[in-house]
């Protein structure tokens, strides 16, 4: 296997390798699978301790497949929550107790669970949510319109948006690595456009199934782990934070600013593991540029090809990370363009 930087096995008996080896160096083979199946393959290689599920279209299959991983011995704990609110609360408990945890949801499920996302962030929990986006409004839609992603923007979580199943596979593995860095340690939401990615098959390259990420080390957390002295949430209920006076305001502002600072500190790690927060496609000298994320980037790439047939030079700047947002990269990538 070469110099992969780690040794030993995880609880599932897989060889532990460095994140760089798993993501960039390990040999990969081509498979033809759906986005939901890609979630299963990523979780299989992520040394995941626990997962909680609840059905909602279009993420139900991914949640179900993580359940199969529990049967196969790759996930330590797996159960169904009472609702999405229950799920997002239960995964918080698992994370506070020191577990690496992943869950999945879609559209209205995200809204039903909404109260939990800023709680995750404020508690500095590196939970991963795979969000298979779908419409949230009436008339009912199960197509992705990404409104729920926009509602998550200011909750204090990192948000990455994958264009395809390959990117989702890699982002799930990288997501744990970046989210669990001591100076980051905030939730990571890996989003895709439901159905377009979850239910369609594509060729993706995956590393062997007998290697996995190093397990989560909860002692690297920037907050104490819960125990008999520090019960869940107890340390975040200080009366000087909760009361309404100028000291409370200062504490609240400082606490929330720290969560945002933590997202900012994820930039160098995210740049490394995602190979940049943006991706450029097309003619660098193009005068017309599309800025897009998720499957909209695929559509924009197709548009640039069609424009090229008409003699129009265009390019796509794909935004991979929405939080943190790549302001500088976007300015740099679009400075030559007039449209």
């Amino acid at each position: 296997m070469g110099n992969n930087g780690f040794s030993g096995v995880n609880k599932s008996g897989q060889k532990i390798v460095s994140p760089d080896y798993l993501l960039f160096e390990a040999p990969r083979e081509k498979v033809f699978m759906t986005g939901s199946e890609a979630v299963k393959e990523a979780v299989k290689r992520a040394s995941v301790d626990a997962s909680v599920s609840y059905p909602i279209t279009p993420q139900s299959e991914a949640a179900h497949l993580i359940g199969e991983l529990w049967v196969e011995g790759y996930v330590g704990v797996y159960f169904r929550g009472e609702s999405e609110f229950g799920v997002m609360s239960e995964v918080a408990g698992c994370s506070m107790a020191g577990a690496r945890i992943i869950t999945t949801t879609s559209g209205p499920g995200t809204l039903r669970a909404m109260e939990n996302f800023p709680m995750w962030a404020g508690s500095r929990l590196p939970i991963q949510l795979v969000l298979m986006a779908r419409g949230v409004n009436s008339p009912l839609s199960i197509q992705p319109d990404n409104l729920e992603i926009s509602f998550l923007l200011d909750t204090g979580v990192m948000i990455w948006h994958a264009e395809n199943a390959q990117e989702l596979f890699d982002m799930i593995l990288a997501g744990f690595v970046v989210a669990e860095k001591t100076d980051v340690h905030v939730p990571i939401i890996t989003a895709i456009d439901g159905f377009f990615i979850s239910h369609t098959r594509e060729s993706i390259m995956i590393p062997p199934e007998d290697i996995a990420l190093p397990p989560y080390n909860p002692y690297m957390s920037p907050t104490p782990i819960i125990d008999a002295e520090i019960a869940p949430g107890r340390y975040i209920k200080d009366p000087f934070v909760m009361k309404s006076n100028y000291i409370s305001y200062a504490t609240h502002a400082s606490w929330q600013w720290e969560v945002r600072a933590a997202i900012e500190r994820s930039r160098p790690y995210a740049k490394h593991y995602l190979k940049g927060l943006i991706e450029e496609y097309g003619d660098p000298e193009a005068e017309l540029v599309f800025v897009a994320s998720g499957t909209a980037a695929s559509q924009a790439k197709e548009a640039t090809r069609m424009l090229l047939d008409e003699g129009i030079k265009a390019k796509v700047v794909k935004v991979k990370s929405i939080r943190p947002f790549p302001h500088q990269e976007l300015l740099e990538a679009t400075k030559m363009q007039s449209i």
Partner: protein
Amino acid sequence: MYNEIVDEEVAMREAAKEMLTRENPTIFVGPLIIYAWNEEAKEMAKLVREMAEVLNAKIIPMVDYRPKYPKINPEVEINPNHPNLTIWHNNIKVCIFIGVHCHFANIALKIIRAETDCLTIAMCAKMGHEDAMITVRDQHPEDVKKFIEIAKQVKKELGK
């Protein structure tokens, strides 16, 4: 020098100089040291006491982060959610954070920066703290011993 990345020794010399020249130097020690939860924590606790002696500093512990109601006694401990009270009460003009979980160090350092004129120094076992005015990272017993030796040297140079 501030807002610059410098060699660890340079940062340590500056930290020692500030501790030895400002009013009421204080070391705030967090639970990662005072709970003696592993051998390194016990060793660090002894080194913190030695550091305090060399720097002529007080020690005020940050015992844990649980709610303190109705209020903390700033004479004997510091609460990360309102560190300014302890700093105002004791007129502390320079302090070292050590053994404090990163999140709580960061929120306290932000409040201190915004609401006091105290110069903050963070000795961190992990990645360091951008909200401290001086910070050193990956600090373990060998590094703290090095800091104590540098502090002794600076103290001699200052004639303290």
